[in-house]
């Protein structure tokens, strides 16, 4: 990615006239991730910190009586100081069309969204295009409770086949505005599709040789893998077909209309098609500003 483009984007969005019509958002988060390496072998799994900064620009338009368009451009930078091959920079547009069925805050809504981003990382084979799509239905149950159901699709077209992934997700989300300033959101979902997992060189060699059983041996000899050094010298990245239970809980504190902080916990329990398990938990604190 040419470094001048993000700088141009920042400068353009800082212009007052443009900013009035296209709100700009900036968020920064610091996370601690248990099993950041997404490793099944607990003895060798790696934990680590991840820092993320996101710059967004949004255009919101009601283009017919009940139809709304949100289009935007996101620039996201993620840093993993202990494993810097996993640093990533993403840039791309997204759009969401929403239909509201009636007037008022309790009217249900449905939306369809799509996004495309180019992703550049410290792993050459992980560079590529990320396409996403989502269908979502939402309803406010009371003045303080919101419910949403969503189904999503994600596909990455990467440089190497190890990182070519396709996922589908289904999720239910409940939001509770506890008070004027505090809100709590919990979600639970199911993910099906491909995931990139990692193993140290000796562990993966053992799996290939049958050390984890014949089913794993057969499967690991058929799937795409490569020595990526993602979490240390000799580490192997490999693509598995899996199913995951994912959940999250976040506590949000609004400071004023344009600033908020969020404390968030994410969990994922992944089980590959040959029964290998990967557990990942993430704890993050983020600050978000809108201009």
């Amino acid at each position, binding site marked *: 990615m040419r470094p001048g483009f993000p700088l141009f984007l920042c400068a353009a969005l800082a212009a007052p006239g443009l900013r009035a019509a296209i709100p700009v958002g900036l*968020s920064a988060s610091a996370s601690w991730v248990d099993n950041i390496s997404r490793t099944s072998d607990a003895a060798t799994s790696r934990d680590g910190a991840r820092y993320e900064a996101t710059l967004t620009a949004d255009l919101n338009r009601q283009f017919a009586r009940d139809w709304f368009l949100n289009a935007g451009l996101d620039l996201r930078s993620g840093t993993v100081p202990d494993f810097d091959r996993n640093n990533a920079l993403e840039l791309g547009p997204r759009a969401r069309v929403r239909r509201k069925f009636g*007037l*008022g805050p309790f009217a249900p809504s449905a939306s369809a969204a799509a996004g495309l981003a180019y992703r550049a990382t410290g792993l050459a084979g992980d560079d590529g295009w990320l396409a996403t799509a989502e269908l979502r239905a939402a309803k406010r149950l009371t003045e303080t409770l919101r419910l949403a159901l969503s189904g999503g699709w*994600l596909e990455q077209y990467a440089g190497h086949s190890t990182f070519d992934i396709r996922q589908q997700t289904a999720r239910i989300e409940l939001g509770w505005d506890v008070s004027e300033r505090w809100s709590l959101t919990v979600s639970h979902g199911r993910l099906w599709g491909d995931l990139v997992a990692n193993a140290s060189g000796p562990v993966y060699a053992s799996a290939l040789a049958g050390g984890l059983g014949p089913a794993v041996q057969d499967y690991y000899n058929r799937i795409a893998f490569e020595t990526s050094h993602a979490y240390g010298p000799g580490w192997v990245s490999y693509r598995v077909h899996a199913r995951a239970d*994912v959940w999250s809980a976040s506590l949000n504190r609004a400071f004023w209309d344009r600033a*908020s902080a969020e404390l968030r916990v994410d969990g994922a329990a992944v089980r590959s098609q040959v029964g290998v398990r990967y557990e990942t938990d993430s704890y993050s604190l983020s600050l*978000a500003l809108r201009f």
Partner: protein
Amino acid sequence: MSRLAALLSACLLAAGLGAAPGAWELRFIDQQGEPVPDAVASLVPLDAAAPPAATDRPEIMQEGQQFAPYVTVVQTGSIVVFPNRDTVQHHVYSVSKARRFELPLYMPGKAEAVTFGEPGVVVLGCNIHDWMAAYLVVVPTPWFAKSGASGTAALAAPAGRYRLEIWHPRLGKPLARDITLADRNAPLGYTLTLKPDRRIRRPTDPKSGGYK
């Protein structure tokens, strides 16, 4: 009426302190003793028809993705202007019996006017920004007032018999009683039993719960 009598406590705080003929000060406090802003008091004449509405056109604007003011009082037949002074679109609407209307695709800079010909409470909302809400109280009289931050409202009307009506967004039922307004009237104190404030909260940026 007995409920009203229980809530109504006349407090002779400043009897005769220079009140103009027919002028009347009302003080509103809640059950915790705090001043209540945005309480609306109106005097509907019982013995004569009310004069027609004034020709001024009050505004309820959209600014900072909020309506301002939160509570507006007008006389039946008034024209209210809804200027969009925001940088974003709005979709102002009301589904209240007193006046149903919609202003969809309401671009920044627009200022449409709506006539309110029936008395009642018109609840205003924005169908894009669910947290935006405001109240327009349409009363069949030119004699009305709204309490400010201090909880006081000054009513002025000719001496005579009236129906005093009290309304607030968080009051379960409007209060009403017949009164006789004299040239000089002692201030009245009202304790309003208010329901919890259930306004929808303005959201901050939600983040997706994605997992890759």
